[in-house]
């Protein structure tokens, strides 16, 4: 019996048949997987064949909240988008902040399962439990933020929205889903999964309460958590003051800041694109997602020069890096403009910047015919970087269309897939695995493809006590962080809370909200269970051990300059140990004993 946290209802919308129905949440699943990422993955495993084409009618897209969404728990505005990922065909779960998740709870639902495919563009309007599928013919083609405004105009000014931009409509495999017009579920190409269903957006508004099982204990737990966070050096001080871009100087300072398509890992001009410079020159104000005491979000404007007037959310640390150092660009105004443009078109900034960097290397090395690019595509040119981003966003010409499919497909097209800085075809973010060893293991083993938010090793390896260059102990650190993050992603709050909070505090919040008896150990077990069912999804989709790897450059080309000069990454040292710790065999397949211990053996 669900006592709190959850609303207990799931909304199913079939866009082929236009059938809409409300279903009771499966309580056993809620106990075993919580909400969000865990529950969504379990449901997807049940309902689709992992082999289906991600852009086909058979794929489903799940928008899921966790039991802490819609409460006063810190940073509890996450909405998870779970689907088979268009970028690589692996299990995808991409999440964003904002206010959509809590609004969905207030409307009476824990999650929405979108099935089938509409013949015409539509959007879904969920108003106090009532659901309509409305024509989006006049909104199709509009930018994500314009769509947000138009949909609110047609529904309710205070509705919270999910929209896709033109990139998702045109099935870019690096397209994102935008919430409130400016908060991105950026990774894995979830925008294309939504676009393939002819779904332009969802608006939601509700008037119901969200309740928790033990209000008094819950409030005690969350005030404790908020207090810890406010005192944390990163979450309470640094990120609040400088945004996530505070990391630019920190990560570059330890020689782990990939530059020029990871040909190096140190950027001498880093300070020109740092969080400090961003604050001084471009910041208008800080923005916080629902109930967030950190408020790492930035609202920025370009004040002068050719990009004058560009205004929007971000850029995050990763975007500063991808459009900046990765492309050799030190012009912060160009970086910010590229970020704003990507948000409007609904495209992933990490993959986009990295794809442009890959194109620059292909161009400079003469691996692509120079006439394929409509301009000189040289490292260091902010103008060229921005032009390339614009081409990809608008999918102009063959080259623009190619760029919009990500670096792997681009590099493969020109016969040099090794120049794509990706794992499982997804571009890795702003931490060089040669310099932060555990991050390499994290990228390689991440179920959704290279990614930094499936267990943020950097928190321990750079911001914490571990030695960034050591291999020993890293497999255990990464496994622990992966499990912790999987459970956290299923609770509805933001990964950044883990800078201050441990499994103890997280379990306390979740158990007092739901009434489930979950202590720190059980919380970690939930996370491990989720990690394993994601792995089972991928195995069924055809992924094997050979996919758990990194670009050859990372494994063989030493870093040229900076504090981490001379380092390469040796994944082999950590990978076998990691599989062993996971209770998987050498081919990365979970053993029967492990699955039995996690009570998921039926899913094999």
């Amino acid at each position: 019996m669900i006592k709190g946290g959850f609303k207990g209802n799931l909304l199913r919308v079939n866009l082929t048949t236009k059938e809409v129905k409300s279903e009771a949440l499966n309580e056993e699943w809620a106990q075993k997987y919580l909400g969000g990422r865990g529950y969504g993955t379990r449901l997807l495993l049940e309902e689709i064949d992992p082999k289906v084409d991600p852009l086909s009618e058979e794929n489903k897209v799940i928008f899921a909240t966790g039991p802490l969404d819609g409460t006063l728990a810190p940073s509890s505005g996450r909405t998870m988008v779970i689907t088979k990922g268009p970028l690589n065909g692996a299990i995808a779960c991409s999440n964003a902040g904002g206010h959509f998740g809590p609004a969905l709870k207030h409307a009476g639902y824990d999650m929405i399962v979108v099935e089938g495919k509409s013949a015409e563009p539509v959007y879904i309007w969920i108003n106090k439990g009532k659901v309509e599928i409305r024509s989006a013919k006049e909104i199709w083609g509009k930018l994500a933020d314009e769509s947000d405004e138009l949909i609110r105009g047609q529904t309710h000014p205070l509705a919270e929205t999910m929209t896709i931009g033109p990139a998702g409509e045109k099935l870019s495999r690096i397209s994102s889903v935008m919430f409130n017009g400016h908060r991105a579920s950026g990774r894995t190409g979830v925008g294309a999964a939504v676009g393939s269903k002819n779904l332009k957006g969802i608006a939601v508004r509700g008037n119901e309460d969200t309740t928790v099982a033990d209000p008094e204990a819950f409030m005690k737990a969350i005030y404790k958590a908020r207090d810890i966070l406010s005192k944390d050096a990163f979450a309470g001080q640094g990120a609040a003051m400088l945004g996530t871009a505070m990391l630019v100087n920190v990560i570059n300072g330890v020689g782990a800041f990939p530059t020029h398509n990871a040909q190096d890992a140190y950027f001498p001009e880093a300070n020109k694109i740092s969080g400090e410079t961003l604050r001084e020159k471009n910041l208008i104000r800080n923005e916080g997602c629902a109930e967030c005491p950190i408020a790492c979000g930035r609202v920025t404007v370009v004040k002068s020069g050719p990009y004058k007037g560009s205004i929007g959310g971000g850029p995050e640390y990763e975007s500063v890096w991808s459009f900046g150092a990765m492309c050799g660009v030190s012009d912060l105004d160009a970086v910010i403009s590229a970020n704003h443009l990507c948000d409007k078109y609904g495209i992933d900034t990490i993959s986009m910047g990295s794809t442009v960097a890959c194109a620059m290397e292909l161009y400079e090395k003469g691996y692509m015919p120079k006439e394929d690019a409509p301009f000189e595509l040289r490292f260091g040119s902010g103008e060229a970087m921005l032009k390339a981003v614009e081409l990809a966003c608008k999918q102009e010409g063959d080259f623009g269309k190619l760029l919009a499919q990500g670096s792997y497909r681009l590099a493969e097209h020109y016969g040099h897939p090794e120049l794509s800085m990706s794992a499982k075809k997804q571009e890795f973010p702003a931490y060089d695995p040669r310099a932060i060893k555990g991050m390499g293991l994290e990228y390689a083993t991440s179920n959704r493809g290279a990614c930094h938010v499936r267990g943020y090793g950097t928190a321990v390896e750079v911001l914490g006590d571990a030695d960034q260059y050591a291999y020993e102990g890293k497999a255990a650190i990464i496994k622990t962080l992966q499990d912790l993050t999987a459970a956290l992603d299923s609770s509805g709050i933001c990964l950044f809370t883990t800078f201050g909070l441990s499994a103890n505090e997280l379990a306390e919040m979740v158990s007092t909200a739901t009434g489930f008896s979950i202590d720190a150990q059980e919380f970690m077990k939930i996370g491990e269970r989720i990690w394993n069912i994601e792995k089972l999804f991928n195995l069924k989709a055809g992924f094997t051990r050979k996919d758990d790897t990194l670009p050859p450059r990372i494994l063989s080309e030493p870093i040229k300059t900076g504090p981490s000069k001379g380092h390469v990454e040796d994944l082999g040292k950590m990978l076998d140990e990691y599989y062993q710790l996971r209770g998987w065999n050498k081919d990365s397949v979970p053993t029967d004993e492990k699955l039995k211990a996690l009570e998921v053996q039926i899913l094999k």
Partner: protein
Amino acid sequence: MKVLMLDQAKCTGCRACEYACSFEHTGKFNPLDSRIKVNEFWEDLTFVPSVCLQCERAYCEEVCPTSALTKNPETGVVELNKEKCIGCKQCIVACPWGSIKLDHTGKEVIKCDNCGGDPACIKVCYPGALSYEEVEDITNVKVQETATRLKEIAKDLVKGGA
């Protein structure tokens, strides 16, 4: 006497104040039951909190036919006596700010009571957009911020004159 002070420039739009307010008054989380509201202008990415200003000449009090609303001379709070309220909604019509409202059921009038002197919204406002201050100090923060900016100009002026 203390009053709730709002600073739009510092609001990050997280709405934690709404949840804290709702919980304080109902034990549940529902922004519609919050006495404080964060207004969001997504097109400009701007956030403006609003709450009852406890007017000196309170129209809600003047228009209330049953004297359910009365201004407490000691605390300055316009207090709502639920027992006397007949739900006629005249106070809502009369309020120039939209700061007195109906709860999520659409039946019960609710308004800010400063939580009896210990506002819950303040406790969760980490950016400091909300504060609870003595009336005498109410404008001091803003005056000082302006003065700090003027000080820099003044320093330059001195340099120029010397």
